[in-house]
Every structure is written in structure tokens, then in C-alpha cells.
């Protein structure tokens, strides 16, 4: 069963100005309707497959972002939505901004824009969904290799 048939989405606002947050939410509502891909906006990291981060990471929420990422089950993908999540954007020079999302967790898809447009976000998320399948396939192959290896040892 492919995980891409129904990936669940978790959104966390790292230090965004809200512009990207409301566009992420707008992407789930009837005009853009991301739910047609089987995506549900969940609030629980343990149910989520796609993590959408908006805004650059700052000193206080770096641990929160790391925690949310570690609570998500494998395979998982991270989408950095908006230019601030990609590299800090207009707030890059602020004293409290460490940088983009990739300063604390690995990012799979970068979606630039200020604020990110729902169309661009949907494009980014559909790329992320394809990656989810690849990651799952790789994990299965890796696991079967290991079983094979262990069999040989016996």
C-alpha cells in the first residue's frame, strides 16, 4: 500500500509573520482544497507524514522544531514553506534568527515566496508526496537487505 495515497500534514509556525501560515491553511480550504490528495491537516506529530515549516528558526523554537521532527514516524518529509523557512528571508539579519529550517532539521522540498502562494505550496507538497514513496521503498529494501545479511550469518 502506497503511503502517498493518504499522507497527513502537520504545520508548525517557526517564526513566520503569519502570511505563510494563513496560506498553508488556505491551501486546505475549498478553493485550493489540498484534501483532494488525501491530505488531512492534523495537529498531532505522531499521525503526520509531511511536516510543513513556515518562518525561520529562532533560538527559542529550535528545540521545538527538532522535537516535533523526532516525534514523527518514519518515513517523513519536510517542506520549508516561504522564503523565511528556506533561508531566513527578510529577517535573515535579525539578531534572533538562526537561519532557515535546514539549520536544525533536514529539509526535502523548498518552496520560496513571500508569502508562499497556495499553488506553489501544492506543487511543493505533491513533490514531497513522491519522495515519501521513495523513502518508504528505500526503507523496505534496506530492511530486506539486512534480513538477507542476517540469514547468511546464521
Amino acid at each position, binding site marked *: 500500500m502506497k503511503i502517498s495515497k493518504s499522507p497527513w500534514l502537520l504545520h508548525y509556525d517557526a517564526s513566520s509573520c503569519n502570511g505563510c501560515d494563513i496560506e498553508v491553511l488556505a491551501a486546505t*480550504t*475549498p478553493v485550493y482544497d489540498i484534501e483532494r490528495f488525501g491530505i488531512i491537516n492534523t495537529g498531532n506529530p505522531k499521525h503526520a507524514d509531511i511536516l510543513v515549516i513556515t518562518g525561520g528558526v529562532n533560538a*527559542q523554537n529550535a528545540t521545538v522544531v527538532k522535537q516535533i521532527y523526532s516525534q514523527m514516524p518514519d518515513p517523513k518529509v519536510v517542506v520549508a514553506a516561504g522564503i523565511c523557512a528556506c533561508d531566513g528571508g527578510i*529577517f535573515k539579519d535579525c539578531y534572533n534568527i538562526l537561519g532557515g529550517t535546514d539549520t536544525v532539521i533536514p529539509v526535502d522540498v523548498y518552496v520560496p515566496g513571500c508569502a508562499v502562494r497556495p499553488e506553489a505550496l501544492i506543487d511543493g507538497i505533491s513533490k514531497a508526496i513522491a519522495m515519501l514513496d521513495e523513502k518508504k521503498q528505500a526503507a523496505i529494501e534496506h530492511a530486506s537487505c539486512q534480513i538477507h545479511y542476517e540469514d547468511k550469518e546464521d
Partner: protein
Amino acid sequence: MATRSVVPFGPQHPVLPEPIHIDLVLEDEKVIEAIPSIGFIHRGLEKLVEKKDFQEMVYVAERICGICSFGHGYGYVDAIEHIMSIEVPERAKYLRMILFELSRLHSHLLWLGLLADAFGFESLFMDTWRIREGILDMFEESTGGRVIFSINKVGGVRRDIPDEMLKRFVKKLDEIESEVGVAARAFLEDSAVKTRLCGIGKLTAREAEELGCCGPMLRASGIRRDTRKLGYLAYDDIDFDIIASDVGDSYARTEVRLGEIFQSIDIIRQAVSKLPGGETEAPVKGFPDGEYMTRIEQPRGEACYYVKANGKKFIQRMRVRTPTFANIPALTKILQGCDMADVPIMVVTIDPCISCTER
């Protein structure tokens, strides 16, 4: 005596689009005390005045918050214009006022959706956000952006909006008004919704005044105070009443914001019918020298912008006091003694905008 326990609420929580952390001290199911801690979205953008010149700072000011972006841009620009004694053309004032009220419409519709989501009425959330897309289409058509549109600049507006387009918008607003009317019935008359809102999070007029509330939160508690009545932009030419309620609970706050949606549509209608012609921007010469404080009415309440400059390219200080910051003390007050299950509703009814608060 029941044992006390502490339940953390946030920073990542299903009902919160933005992170705020509240420690809830519980006795059984009752909240005894709520201790908020903020700082998850603090960027320190006020200090960017040292790196961006006074014209570039408009873009930074607009990104204080993506929901009330237009207002933040206007507040900053207005302070600079006063320091530099720039006379903004009448047409630009009217265009700014129209865009300001459209922003208020989009912000209140967004809030109504989040409220519906907080009490678990998913289809109502979807419906209000569908209506809101109509307003965003207007922004996109007239300014080019959906949420952050950078139309303000020192001295006026960046582009003119043609009269025909505005007339078309007014026609579209008639449709939006009737659609909001249908949604308003669900918010105000549905018995299930009423049980989640009536009597929840009561704040008396005296408490609201003492805790320094502002905006719809203050007006829903019976104090009629609206910064728009100061008559900045062209609000002096517009006929409107302050919408208030004397009850002070979550239901009253919903009622006030719904009333303001219809009021904003009315203000836009009046503004379009009175719109003067002429220039949309005034020339800007030299650099600002002096200080000024602007007060404006954002969708969430009164916001203040302080700017100090000394005749150089970079201004010395910018300070913003945002409405949510003023409403957080009231939030901790109404959370005391409420049920644990009502906490999300109350956090949403102050209409929190954390990225404004922390900047």
C-alpha cells in the same frame, strides 16, 4: 482538596495556528491559573532599522504580521509622513482606507473560521474561508499580492486602483455580504454553537478597562472606544457607529466582530461613492528628522507606532505596540476558573496574533 496538576498548552497545539505556550494549573477539570510564556516567534525586527533605510523599512513593517499587514505598513508610513510633513493626496487617503477595511474584512472572516474550527464545526470553518477568498481575489487584482501586498509607500500608494474596478468590488461585496449573513446565522443562532460560546470567558467592563484591553475585546465588554473615531485617513468623512455589546462573553465578541464585517462593507461603499480624483502620491525629499507616534485601529484593536529619526538615511528607533499584547492580561484573567475544554475557545476569542506580539 483536589490535587493540582500542570498541563502545558502549546506551543504546538491543534487549535493554534501560531505558537504560544500557556501553563494551565488545574484542579480536577477547572483551570486555577494560567501562566503564559511567549517568545517563540520573536525575530527582533525593530532592530532592523539599523540595517534597512527608512524606505526599505516599509517592507519590514508590513511583515510584522501577515494578517494585519496593510495596517502595520500604514502605521509606520504615517509616522514617517508626519515627521517629514508630507501632505498625502486625498485619493491616496481614500484608497488606503478602502484597503484597510478590506483587510479588516479578511482578518475577521479568518478569525470566524478559526473560531468555528476551535469548537469543532469543520464545515463552517471551510465556508467562512471560502467567502474570505473573494476578498483575497480583490487584493490580488488591485495590488498584485494575496496577503502581503506592499502597496503603501512613504508619500502615498504605489499604484492607483481604477474607479471601475472599485465599483466592481462593491458589487462583489454585496454578494459577500449576503453570504456572510448566512454564515452569521450559524454563528449566532445555532443552539450547539451557542452552548460553546454563551457565558464562556466573561469579562466585565471594569476588568476590561483595568487590564488595558483594546479592540473588539474591549467593545464586547461594553466600552465604546474605537481609534478610527480619531479621524485619521478619511474616517472623518464616513458615517459609522461604534459596534459594542454589554455582555462581555465569547458570544458577544463573535457578535461584535460579525457586526464589524457588515460595518466595513458599509464603509467601503461610502468611501467608493465619495472617492476623489487626482494624484495618488506626493514627492518625498530628504530624510526624516524628529519623532512621532501614530495610533490606528487594527482589526484586533489599537496599535501604536513610534518612530524616531535624526535626519539620516537610517531611522534611530521604531517601536510597535500591538493589540494582542494588550489583550494577553485579559486572557489570563478569563482563563481563571474556566473548564479545561473551554481553553481553546477562549484563546481564540481574543483573536491572538502572536507574530504581532513578539515581532
